[in-house]
Structures are given as structure tokens and as C-alpha cells.
């Protein structure tokens, strides 16, 4: 190790990999992965989030996780986004294609994709 820059480079590179264990990430994306969710296609949604977040280089601030059934099985796959200080956002009837838009507009842009949310879908 010849310089502090080298050390910092390793730290940055590895931070993403151990960040899951620190629990410090700002955003948590939780995908409903109970039987109902999986049957409705939650796995491709989860994979799309995992890949998308990684490709955008957001892994250090965003955690993708999974959970069981939250009770609105007819709206599966359900995805919830938690951000500190903000109301949680519940997206319903998600697909891998919709994931792209959620990452681009909500996770990166900070603007909720209203037309995918539970409230919007129920009212419509």
C-alpha cells in the first residue's frame, strides 16, 4: 500500500458489498415474495430491482430486500419503497418493465411514479 488513495479505492469498492450488514442505506426497496407474490411474478421484479440498482451504481445507498405477504394479494407483485422522513410508497401489479421507470424516476429522481401506486390503482 503506497498511498491513502489506494486504501480509499478499496474502501469504496468494498463498501457496496458489506453495506447490507451496516443497515445504513437510505432507501429500502422491499418486494413481497410470499406464494401469492411469486405466483404473480415477483421474482423477475426482484431481479430487475437488484440488477437495476446495481447498474445505476446505487448499491451503497439502496437496499433491495424481500418480505412476505402484506395482505393485498390481488395486487401482487407488490413493492414498497421506504425512505427516511418520507411516507412509504406502495407500488402494485409490478413488472420488470415498470421497475426501470421506478428506479429512474423515483429512486434516482425522487418523484413517485403515481400511476403504479396502490392508491392510484384502487381509485382507477
Amino acid at each position, binding site marked *: 500500500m503506497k498511498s491513502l488513495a489506494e486504501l480509499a479505492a478499496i*474502501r469504496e469498492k468494498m463498501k457496496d458489498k458489506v453495506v447490507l450488514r451496516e443497515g445504513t442505506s437510505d432507501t429500502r426497496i422491499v418486494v413481497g415474495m*410470499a406464494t401469492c407474490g411469486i405466483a404473480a411474478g415477483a421474482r423477475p421484479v426482484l431481479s430487475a430491482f437488484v440488477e437495476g440498482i446495481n447498474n445505476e451504481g446505487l448499491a451503497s445507498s439502496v437496499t433491495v430486500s424481500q418480505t412476505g405477504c402484506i395482505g393485498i394479494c390481488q395486487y401482487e407483485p407488490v413493492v414498497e419503497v421506504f425512505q427516511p422522513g418520507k411516507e412509504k410508497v406502495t407500488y402494485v401489479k409490478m413488472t420488470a418493465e415498470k421497475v426501470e421507470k421506478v428506479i429512474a424516476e423515483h429512486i434516482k429522481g425522487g418523484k413517485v411514479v403515481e400511476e403504479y401506486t396502490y392508491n392510484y390503482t384502487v381509485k382507477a
Partner: protein
Amino acid sequence: MIRAHVLCCGGTGCTSSGSLKIQEAFVREIEKQGLAEEVKVVQTGCFGLCALGPVVILYPDGTFYSRVEEKDVAEIVSEHLLKGRPVERLVYNEASEGSEETHASLNDTTFYKSQHRLALRNCGVINPENIEEYIAMDGYAALGKVLTEMTPDEVIQTILDSGLRGRGGGGFPTGLKWKFASGNRGNVKKYVACNADEGDPGAFMDRSILEGDPHALIEAMAIAAYAIGADEGYVYVRAEYPIAVNRLQIAIDQAKEYGLLGNDIFGTGFNFDLSIRLGAGAFVCGEETALMTSIEGNRGEPRPRPPFPAVKGLFGQPTVLNNVETYANIPQIILKGADWFNQIGTEKSKGTKVFALGGKINNTGLVEVPMGTTLRHIIEEIGGGIPNGKKFKAAQTGGPSGGCIPAHLIDTPIDYDNLMAIGSMMGSGGLIVMDEDTCMVDIARFFLDFTVDESCGKCTPCRVGTKRLLELLDKIIAGNGELEDLDRMEELCNYIKSASLCGLGQTAPNPVLSTLKYFRDEYVAHIVDKKCPAGVCKSLLQFKIDADKCIGCGKCAKQCPADAITRTDYIAPGHKLASFTIDTTKCVKCGACMSGCKFGAISKS
């Protein structure tokens, strides 16, 4: 991208309950269910809840699985990792009864909630065999900081200001030790050394740090070397810690490979090399002068102090010798500052202390709490209380060098000075909890027996004195004691304390003295009444058959190894067979008859 981590404990406790097999099973099962791309299995150091091993934690949710068996692995993978539903039946439930809820997240449990993990911060979090994971947790940043931004004197001042005291026993201020060794930098060969010869029965915090976060030690020793102007270091580890030795060696090799040990570290011209020396398991080698004599290749015997190691240590050169836990605090003090550290703890004892909880307590394991936490909090809250609703009688701190703290002092805030004041000591942090079934005379004998075995024999007070003390204790336990023996013991204890060469002898009488002080009535009961109130000391026990309860089945007589039980000609009212009786002159007091009797007819007193 990895979306979940499975952390399997690879500490000694969990390894012996089969964690390696569990880890392999996870890798297999994750592969089988097609999750290898998104779930990573990581082996970590000790989480602290050793009684519940093998322990597995799933992140990011932090679900804590305890007592995992190989057959459970497939279920955890398919239910939790694939479908996102924690397997409730395996999730850690508070050991203290009455709590119905299972705790999904580790940090919510009372065991962890009030802990403050500094020395153990990476244990159970990072993979100790991967230097890059340590670097990700700000590892080696403190070394970088001292080498590029601080003078050696500034480093020493920071450690002085932090108030850090040695975690291995006496509690000497670490910064002061460094300062004493710091003179004449560059002109004199100096060494830094680490005492990892953890010998107290039941204490294993140092092992846990070596197994869970070995790079923290390496980084801290390099910082110490820079501060005093040394370029060579030794870690003295006992050979009985194979996992710790192995992980430390891996860590040293990796640090060398990354240029964090060796020549011209960070391009600053600072050189530091580190190697391991194995101890052969002699307790006395935990004493600093004996430890250094052993590193030098001689028989591990202490030598008189002064000269202190800071003046004349390893190979006659100035040496800084600290304990593992002490070192583990150093990098964080450098990074976060002395003021951050000295806000934690009490006025004269700063920071945290790791305790190895053992004995009659629900949550045995490792806990790290701020100095000044009361014994009651550690035992009743974190430790989950005493099993089977028994009453707390005493706690023993400091291992064979420490003393017993009785129940009426349970609210004492634990720090160096308070423990000294009540006749015990911090020691390395073993904390053995005893309930009402423990005989304090027997406990004193247990620890003294240990020091008699471990006395190196170099000085007479320790070699002969402890032996004579043990004989007096044996006499009392055998029922032959006289009241004068108590005074003789006290006198002898004080001779041993004041005349022994090293810490081993100087502290060896502590268990006897403290039990004499707080539990004198138990000694008196052994001597005057010839009774052991806790029912432990066999020579003073009498087994008896209640003739009216005995139905005459004869099971006890068959089980008696000494043929001490015979049939009488008394038939109790309502029974068909004659009852049995015990010949106390033949009885060897093994208790086999009593544990075999289904009718509760046999009692001991």
C-alpha cells in the same frame, strides 16, 4: 448484485456446535435453488450469544437464527431467501421466559440492545479472512491518518486524552505506557507486543477479537509502533486457540500482501513487521515479564519489576505490551478522537468493557457494555437472569485473580476502581454468575486449585504459600476445620499477596479473601456445624432414606456402587416391602441413589 448475506458464525463456540457444516449446507442449498448470484454466504467471528449456537444472521433484515441444524437449512433458504418469510420457529426467542414474541432483528433483543460494541464492532459483521471487508469498515484508515497527519507525540497524547486503560487486568493507562517507552526514538531498537495469552477460565474476549476482527489488532499494533518508534512486533497467542492463530496468520499475510505491514507503509518510510509466537498454555505467561521471557525463547518465568517493560522489555529493549482488547479500541480512538471515547464510561474508567458471561445465567456469551454499567443490568437484563428461578448469590470477576461480589453489591457500577474497592478486580473480564446452589468455599477452592497448578514455582510465597492455603481449604471442606484456620488463612493470604514476585501470586489469594469477607458464615457452617449450606461439599453431606416414604423397591441398593444400602426389617404402614437404609460409613456420597429414587424417599443434608 448481492441482495442478501447469510452470516454464519465461525467462532470457536459455534464451530464446536457444528457451524461449519451449516455454512457448507447453505452454500449447497443456495446453489441448488439458483440463488448463488444474489445471496452470499459469509463466515464471521463471534456474535456473542454462544449459548445459542450455531448462530446464523440474514441481512439486510438482520434476522437472527439460533441453534440452526443442518436439516433446517433448506427450509431457511426456500422460505426466507426465496420467499421472504422468516422461519419463525428458528428465530431467536428471548431466553428470559414469558416473552412470546420472536425477535426478527438482532438489535432489538435485550441481549444486544444495551450493549455498546466498540472492541467487538466488527465481530460477527465482517469476514475476518478478507482484509478488504475490514478496509470497507474504515479499516487501516486510522493507520493512514497517524502516518500522514500526526506526529508520534500527538498519537500518544490522543491515547492519553482518551483515558483508555489496559483491558487485560490491572487497568494501567495505555497512553502513559506508550509515553514511557517513547523516549529516544530512532536511536534505540524497540518492540511492541500483544498479550493474547488469555488464560482466565471462562474468558474468551481476546480470542473472539482475534477470530472476528484480527486486522484491528494488526492496525493498532502498527499505530503503537509508530508512536513509540518501534519497527517490530510480536503477538503472543496461546496454542490452544487454533482458529484464532490461523485467522491472525491469514490477516498478517494479507496485510503484508497489501503493503500494510512491511517496509515504507503508505509511502511514509515507516516500517513495521509483525509475527506470532505461540504460548504453550502456561497461565503465568499471561504475566507481562513471563510472557516476554517466553517470547525470548526461555522458560516462561516472571522477573522482578522495575525495570518495567517500557524501559527494559523484550530482549532488554523498551517494549510496549498491551492486551488484545486494549489494542482493538485504538483505531477507533484515532479516527473518532479522544473526546468521543472519553464521553463513554465513568470518570476514571473510559470506554467499554467486554465480559464473558458464564455460570448460572441464561444468556452465556460475550457482552460489551459501557464502563459503569451495574452488575444487575448485566445479569438480569442482558444475561436474561438466572435459570430455573434460582436466586443470585454472587458473581466472580477477574478469574483466579479476582474476587466474588455478593448479592448486596449487585448495584455496584462496574469499573476498575469500584471493583478494586470491593475486593475484586476487572481482570480480563470473565464474569461467572453463581446461584444459591453454589458453595462459596468450594468456589474459592476451585480457583486456588487452579493457581496452585499454574504457579511457576520461581518464588516461594506463591509456590509454597498457595499450596498451604489449599491444604487449609481442603481441611475445612473435609469437615476437619477449626475456627483458628480462618485467621491462619487470612494471615497467609496477606503474606502471599505482599511477598510474591508477580501478579499471579499477588492476586492468587483474592478468591479466598473475598469469600472470607462476604461469606464468612459459610466457612463457619463448614467448620462449626460440619455442614455445607449449599449441599456441594461431599464430605459434609449425609444421605438418608425416609423409612416411611421408602416402598422397598430396592432400586437404590442396586445402583449403589459401594454396597452401602441394605434392607431393614421395618415395613412402613401401607407398604408391602421392608424399607432400605444407608450405612453412612460405607457411603461415598455419589448421589446415585437419590437421583434414581422415584419416590423422593432419599434426601441429602
